[in-house]
């Protein structure tokens, strides 16, 4: 395999990882604060729709991004209301929001654009543009490092760079700031936070809101950066994969990066190397399709130990019954 192919596969991995990474970090904030969220999928979906819809109508992709974030935040607010204010079941709330997003996006899309639950194609120049890093063209000819810099690292959209920058930022927020300390504490021992005179409800809502923002960016990335419009169900299960990555990563930012890159890489490999011919026997496409998932299980079973979730995760904080 030549360098070029490797770089292309890795390049593809980055694009496939980006939405996973954003959703995964979104889940990380929420779950670190003790609020489980299987509604990542729904938030991404609704954000994808609104970002595409508003980008198309306004012609401004940043407005679209804001709209996507807003829509995602609205679902977050419902999730917060259900699981924080009313101490409801977080799993049910997440499931419900996934349904809600799936139904609403198509309903509204049909109502607005009459194109069968799709948005019209966003003109090329109105999407998020790929950013060429400085000197990318000049450095391309340097052996090895040149292509890596110019073809692999350069040429992604702003949202992708934001996603990757979010990893150290998340780490920094969680482990270097007061907010992060409290956020981690509230997912482990909300009573400790409460008795320390900090509002459990406030912290958890903040975490859920951050989750909403990041899911919003993820959705916008799908619909306005990778693609040029919304197609129904276009998240295609990425929210669930992100959730798996989060557990895989044991709720840690750098591990999340690794997990998402791994998932993205496995998918890229499966897409790039279909129909491998092993001396007459062609590996069926279904086997390649299943490969990322099989490998995930193998890696999980073989190399990643037990994942211990935040101790107070999934449980509403109740002090008086």
């Amino acid at each position, binding site marked *: 395999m030549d360098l070029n192919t490797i770089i292309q596969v890795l390049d593809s991995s980055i694009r496939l990882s980006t939405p996973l990474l954003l959703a995964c970090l979104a889940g990380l904030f929420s779950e670190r604060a003790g609020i489980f969220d299987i509604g990542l999928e729904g938030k991404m979906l609704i954000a994808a729709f609104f970002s595409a819809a508003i980008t198309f109508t306004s012609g401004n992709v940043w407005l679209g991004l804001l709209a996507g974030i807003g829509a995602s935040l609205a679902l977050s607010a419902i999730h917060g209301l259900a699981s924080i204010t009313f101490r409801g079941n977080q*799993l*049910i709330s997440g*499931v*419900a929001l996934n349904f*809600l997003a799936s139904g609403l996006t198509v309903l509204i899309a049909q109502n607005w654009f009459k194109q069968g639950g799709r948005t019209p194609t966003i003109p090329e120049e109105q999407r998020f543009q790929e950013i060429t890093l400085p000197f990318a063209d000049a450095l391309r000819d340097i052996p090895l490092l040149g292509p890596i810099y110019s073809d692999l690292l350069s040429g992604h959209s702003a949202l992708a760079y934001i996603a990757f920058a979010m990893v150290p930022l998340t780490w920094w927020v969680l482990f270097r700031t007061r907010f992060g300390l409290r956020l981690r504490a509230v997912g482990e021992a909300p009573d400790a936070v409460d008795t320390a005179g900090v509002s459990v409800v406030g912290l958890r809502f903040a975490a859920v809101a951050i989750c909403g923002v990041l899911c919003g960016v993820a959705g916008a990335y799908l619909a306005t950066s990778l693609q040029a419009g919304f197609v129904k169900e276009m998240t295609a299960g990425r929210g669930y994969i992100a*959730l798996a990555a989060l*557990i895989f990563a044991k709720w840690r930012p750098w591990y999340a990066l690794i997990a998402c890159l791994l998932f993205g890489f496995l998918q890229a490999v499966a897409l790039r190397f279909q129909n491998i011919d092993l001396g007459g026997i062609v590996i069926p496409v279904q*086997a390649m399709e299943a490969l990322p998932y099989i490998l995930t*299980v193998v890696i999980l079973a073989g190399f990643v130990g037990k994942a211990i979730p935040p101790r107070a995760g999934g449980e509403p904080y109740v002090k008086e019954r």
Partner: protein
Amino acid sequence: MDKMPAWADAVLVPLISILLAAGISALVILAIGENPVEAFMIMVKEALSTSRGIGYTLYYATNFIFTGLAVSVAFHARMFNIGGEGQAMMGGLGVALVCLYVPWPHWTLALFGAAAISALFGAAWAYIPAYLQAKRGSHIVITTIMFNFIAFSVLNYILVNVLRPQGSMDPATAKFPEATFLPTFQSMFSTADNVMFRNAPANVTFFVALAACVAVYFLIWRTRLGYEIRAFGHSETGARYAGISPVKITIVSMLISGGLAGMMALNTTMGEAERLVLNATEGAGFIGIAVALMGRSHPFGILLAALLFGFMYQGGSELAFWTNIPQQLIIVIQALVILFTGALDNMVRMPLEKLFLSIRKGDA
């Protein structure tokens, strides 16, 4: 020393929650310019007032009972089995194999055989995640998600390349032999001059599902195994103290869970389609999660929740026949019902509790 009477908690809270969900749904229907009252009447009329409508409602409910029970059993052992979809798919494969390749003399035997094999296939598909959870601590949520995807691939391969009859465009098996056809409600309940459940897909599997409810009830609340499953679910350290093996309970409860999910295929594959199609599960595995959670993991609650979902499925598709309300609206309504009854129930409960408490104080 409860804050409000048990009946209020069991009946009043869900009722008000459903009403709230219905209210918001009505607003959504109004927003798209349709008449909510009319829509509701159609749903009730077509899903509940004719035997045929009921036949459809029960058909869908049967699926949800199986997947709901499956999720609940794992839940009692504090495991979140998201793999119902894949397990049901594998159950379907098992059903297809025995129906196609075993010369059954009579449907009763075929039903027993298929029930056993569907449970076996479903359980087998749950076994690896269960084993990995028990022995390696691999998180069951990830592994079952992954196994859903893998099941799709396996089924896709088998249907396209192995079981598909030559020349057929449909990635599906051949029709099963007639001896395996299950009696439908129509054939069971119609009399010579009165046809009941005409052409509705509800079939004898519904009773298997009811039996499964009873069996799960006994399993969880009457048997020693159920006692251990619940104990383990509540406290792993406690279970260790009492000599309950975490490995055993993890695996056994997942096997039961997978088996129940697999048995859903009896209804769709053997009872309705009479052949195995690619998308036989249609997301029922995921609906099962909502059903189990809404039913509070109790078989009776699951039965009710499954009926509610069956009603929404059937009523919803009838809406599409009679009005211009799009299918997606039904999904939105489902979402609202799940949200209000399952996650926002305290919004209703808290004020009710206050009310009851003040009534009681007033009495005292």
